[in-house]
């Protein structure tokens, strides 16, 4: 993975000192909360319902064991012993004291981490495929260009006061695990007919109160032109994006109001200007330097089958089940990709304790070439595990209650922090995720239901991605009472779609029954091994709606 050089180290260190000065000016009263707000937001510090929250960037979701150990240490020393992994592959701490945040950031800098641009109206942390470099049939490891984008966008002088926040996601694989079509800019690494690698660029996707699937603005941007193209999109947005209403300020609204064709023309005109200067073509030597950090680790040459692995599965049904749900085929023979579910039955989605983080760090160090990933579905990944080692890894995970075999199943829900933490929320999300998880606790039943993505947001800002849940749940407030609106048929992958609202919202007493009704309806309607989303796309909303609102 990428390692800082002296420039990276120096800039992060300077930023810590800059923020230390800003915090001192705030604490002394020289800076008002209003003037301090954009500065703390540039450094990942939010003011939540009960306390400040700090969001730490995990670029494209890749971590080393040393970094995860530091995150565990911070959870213990600066917070209440846990951290929360987010849908943008970051980690949040809910209870740090403002005065101690500069020290916390200095500790992060020791392990090449920071909280820069994890909030505020700037280009946020770049996200990517959690299986990058481990999955077969990848066109190119998306972390290479993600790292270049990370550097280009860091402290960008022109794009630090955008109309609104700006999120970029990259995938190098035909199967999109990074939800690129729901981002301000989504990049797909593609190969053209001449065999050259380049980028398909999607612009204007997003969720929130006005969800849109991104429009494909460019079919093929050559490799050396991507930064110029990105800068062109950003400049058009910075100049023309609305600043009169924060709900209409994202680039999705600009694309929608301008029209796809006109937007493409504007971007191409700006691109022609920037491209002519050649100033954003990164030297090949620098691309090569960054690429070397993402070369495959020193895999052993192993047979495709492992006798030890086969025997362990035969001996231990629980292990065999976990392998079926949480383990994915690796590009390298004899290896596998392990998903660690942070969705224990009845637990808080995405939370991990300091002790759990340390245990996972150790597994990464011993078994996975020191590498870890965070997924946008709020789980963790050990990307390179030998089949021979799977049982040992599993046993350690079981010890730490990290071996829930539910990846992609109904209890593997995304949930935003909701009214338990967030001052924007209308309703609680976490307790509802827990209730659903408890209702469907029986794993055999979950396996029978199969892949079903539930996504829960506590308000219309859609941090829990409810628009793209197979079943989406949105918390709404009616006269001080929490209600939940349900939508069906959303999806965040390469076949991205927005869910259809079923109708009248449910109370907290009836919402879990409603989910159960939807699941039973699906089970009754499905053909053979059809997944929920496939059945829904075949039969549509009506049969679900009829059952849901039958008296």
């Amino acid at each position, binding site marked *: 993975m990428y390692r800082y050089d002296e420039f990276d180290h120096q800039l992060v260190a300077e930023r810590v000192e800059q923020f230390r000065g800003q915090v001192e000016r705030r604490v002394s009263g020289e800076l008002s909360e209003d003037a301090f707000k954009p500065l703390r937001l540039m450094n990942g510090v939010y003011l939540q319902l009960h306390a400040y929250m700090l969001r730490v960037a995990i670029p494209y979701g890749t971590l080393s064991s040393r970094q995860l150990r530091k995150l565990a240490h911070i959870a213990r020393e600066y917070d209440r012993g846990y951290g929360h992994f987010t849908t943008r592959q970051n980690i949040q701490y809910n209870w740090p004291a403002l005065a101690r945040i500069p020290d916390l950031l200095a500790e992060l800098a020791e392990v090449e981490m920071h909280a820069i641009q994890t909030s505020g109206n700037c280009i946020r942390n770049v996200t990517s495929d959690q299986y990058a470099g481990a999955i077969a049939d990848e066109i190119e490891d998306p972390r290479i260009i993600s790292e270049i984008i990370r550097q280009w966008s860091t402290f960008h002088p*022109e794009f630090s*006061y955008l109309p609104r926040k700006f999120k970029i996601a990259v995938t190098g694989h035909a199967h999109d695990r990074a939800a690129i079509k729901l981002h301000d800019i989504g990049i797909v690494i593609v190969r053209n007919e001449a065999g050259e690698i380049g980028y398909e660029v999607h612009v204007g996707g997003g969720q929130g109160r006005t969800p849109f699937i991104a429009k494909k603005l460019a079919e093929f941007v050559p490799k050396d032109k991507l930064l110029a193209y990105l800068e062109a999109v950003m400049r058009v947005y910075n100049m023309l994006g609305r600043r009169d209403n924060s709900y209409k300020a994202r680039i999705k609204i600009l694309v929608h109001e301008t029209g796809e064709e006109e937007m493409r023309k504007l971007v191409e005109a700006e691109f022609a200007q920037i491209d002519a*200067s050649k100033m954003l073509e990164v030297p090949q030597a620098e691309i090569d330097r960054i690429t070397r950090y993402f070369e495959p680790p020193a895999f052993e040459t192993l047979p495709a089958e492992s006798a030890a692995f086969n025997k362990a599965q035969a001996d231990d049904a629980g292990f065999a089940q976990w392998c079926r749900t949480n383990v994915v085929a690796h590009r390298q023979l004899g290896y596998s990709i392990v998903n660690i579910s942070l969705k224990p039955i009845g637990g808080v989605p995405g939370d991990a304790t300091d002790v759990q983080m340390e245990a996972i760090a150790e597994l990464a160090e011993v078994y996975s070439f020191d590498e870890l990933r965070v997924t946008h579905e709020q789980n963790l990944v050990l990307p390179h595990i030998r089949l021979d080692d799977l049982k040992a890894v599993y046993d350690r995970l079981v010890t730490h209650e990290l071996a829930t075999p539910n990846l992609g199943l109904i209890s593997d829900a995304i949930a935003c922090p909701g009214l338990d933490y967030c001052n924007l929320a209308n309703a609680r999300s976490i307790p509802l995720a827990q209730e659903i998880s408890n209702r469907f606790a029986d794993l055999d039943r979950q396996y029978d239901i199969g892949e079903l993505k539930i996504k829960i947001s506590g308000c219309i800002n859609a941090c829990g991605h409810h628009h793209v849940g197979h079943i989406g749940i949105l918390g709404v407030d009616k006269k001080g009472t929490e209600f939940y609106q349900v939508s069906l048929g959303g999806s965040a992958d390469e076949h991205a779609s927005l869910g259809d609202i079923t109708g009248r919202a449910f109370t907290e007493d009836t919402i879990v029954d409603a989910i159960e009704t939807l699941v039973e309806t699906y089970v009754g309607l499905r053909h053979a091994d059809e997944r929920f989303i496939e059945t829904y796309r075949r039969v549509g909303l009506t049969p679900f709606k009829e059952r849901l609102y039958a008296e």
Partner: protein
Amino acid sequence: MPNSKKLIIDGAESSNIWHCFDDETPLAEAPAIISLARLQDEGAELVAAGKKLGVILRAGEKQGEDVHALKPFLDNLAVVAIEFPVYRNGRGYSAARILREQMGFRGEIRAVGEVLFDQWQFMHRCGINAFEVDADVSLEAFQEALDELSAAYQPAADPQRGILWRRHN
């Protein structure tokens, strides 16, 4: 410019010789900063009369004024004042870069409005060389802000080379 402001041009405190005029007031002898609309209406005759001209580019909320509209007048403009009505409204950063990098403007680009400590370095990188700041800002503090980050990853309108380029000479 109210007295509570100070003008820093190219790192030095400067007296402001420019007067801002609204669209109705007749222009006096002194150099005048006028609106884009007035520049478009009266620019040609003012230039013919030998008037020294500057313009203010308004940022707006729903939309801002288009920097490209200055193109026909650039040779006769000594100052382009770019408005930052609130720190959050960052349209002017793009306008400044386009002026410097694409339109070849070499005159003064002045940031006016809410122009705060933590923005100066980015503004400077975008090609802004004059800053209308609060009167109590010292030149030392100003210079400190300009040097706060010692390097930049990306190229912009200043001569500084991006780190992605500097690593390989």
